[in-house]
């Protein structure tokens, strides 16, 4: 499983790529592998304010429905419209073209509090 070192992670298997005042969010390689073939992604509306830990999107595979939780508090500034027609991008390129939303970062401290790649990888090895 890949866990790029430049990203921050949650225990719920989301990643955040901070770039200035905002950051893209997706689900990790581990999460997409666990879910299996992704067939549908429900995206939040642009402009929606979300709180850290709030479910603000849904990723569905053939068999299951999984919430996507906001890793940090912020406002949705854009969503990945490419997932509407090709949800399988989440499987094929979870850290790239499979990104789900971009959030405006409200509090930098929340970003700093997220797991780094090493801590997230250790969590997986700890048994899931």
């Amino acid at each position, binding site marked *: 499983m890949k866990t790029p070192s430049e990203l921050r992670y949650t225990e719920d298997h989301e990643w955040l790529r901070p770039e200035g005042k905002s950051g893209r969010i997706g689900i990790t390689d581990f999460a997409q592998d*666990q879910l*299996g*073939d992704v*067939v*549908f992604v*429900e995206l939040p509306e642009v402009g929606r304010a979300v709180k850290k830990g709030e479910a603000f999107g*849904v990723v*569905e*595979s*053939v*068999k299951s*429905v999984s919430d996507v939780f906001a890793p940090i508090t912020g406002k949705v500034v854009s969503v990945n419209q490419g997932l*509407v027609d090709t949800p399988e991008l989440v499987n094929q390129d979870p850290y790239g073209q499979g990104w789900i939303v971009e959030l405006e970062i409200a509090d930098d401290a929340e970003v700093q509090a997220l797991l780094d790649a090493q801590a997230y990888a250790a969590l997986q090895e700890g048994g899931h």
Partner: protein
Amino acid sequence: MGKRTPLYGEHVALGARMVDFGGWDMPVQYPSGILAEHEAVRTRAGLFDVSHMGEIECTGENALEFADHLVANDCMRLAMDQVLYTPMCYPDGGVVDDLLVYRLQDRVLLVINASNTDKDFAWVREQQDAFAGDVKVRDISSKTAQLALQGPKAQEVLQRLTAKDLGEIAFFHAAEDVEVAGKRALVSRTGYTGEDGFEVYLPAEDAVHVWREILRAGEPEGVIPCGLGARDSLRFEACLPLYGHELDDQHNPLEAGLKFFVKLAKSDFVGHAALVRVQEQGGPERRLAGFRLLERGIARQGYPLLDVQGQPVGTTTSGMPSPTLGAAIGLGFLPAALAQPGTRIAVDVRGRAVSAEVVKIPFYRRSAK
């Protein structure tokens, strides 16, 4: 830790994702994924471990009469080595389970759902106590492994492992003492995928050998192991009911669309009076219907079904995007008046009303040869 089939080690070695299913540790999918496994069965063939299924053996002079008393379908018209599908009801018409009944040389075999095995066996025992004829019942589930090879290439592949002419086994018929890869098995042309295929029952200790041999024999055709995920999506497209979804003790088989498998002309069986009453009162008030979503979204089990005014009128029993049809479809119970194809309804998908249309079922039917 759940119960394990004799093939547990094979699944782990193949990289399967194991999940709990009715108390069993079962493979939900292998690394190929549900969609690829589903497609393999529709276009080639796939091999399933279904050893978790329960088997009850009925012996004695009146074993067939006993089975006939237990279930709603007509066992008395079964020829030797013939198989039938049937619901088994409580006296109030609710469904205990759905099962296969095999009429074999010296016994009648009932093949029941894994998660219902203990409940079913207790129920069958109870009926046996009240039954006047000569019958003994035995739960042989733990000694019996079951493999299902399903798909258009199933016969061609399995034929390589046996001298028995599989072409002689007709749909819903069985053959006993068939040597498969050198092991003796009961082979039937049955399945739960909507495709042609075989189910192979054999002693638990022979399961690993035969599993490996079938996969090896099927390599040229691209036969792959398939998990419960694909088994569910395949049976769902073919509208084969799954206990706990389309069937339970709160619904009778007439509501669940199994009228064809309920023989009310039979003089008596458990649940007969209740089902006769349903028919006399004009048929069931609610019916299982299939629907297709007209907007983006996926209906899942438990999601409410709404009428066009937005009032809840039923519940989704199974739903997913159909790999074969490429559309999000579902099954659910609706008032009889709304269960007609063409009727507009909606599905409450996490608080959003997604419009849908009732369609004819089954969603998928394999083309005739």
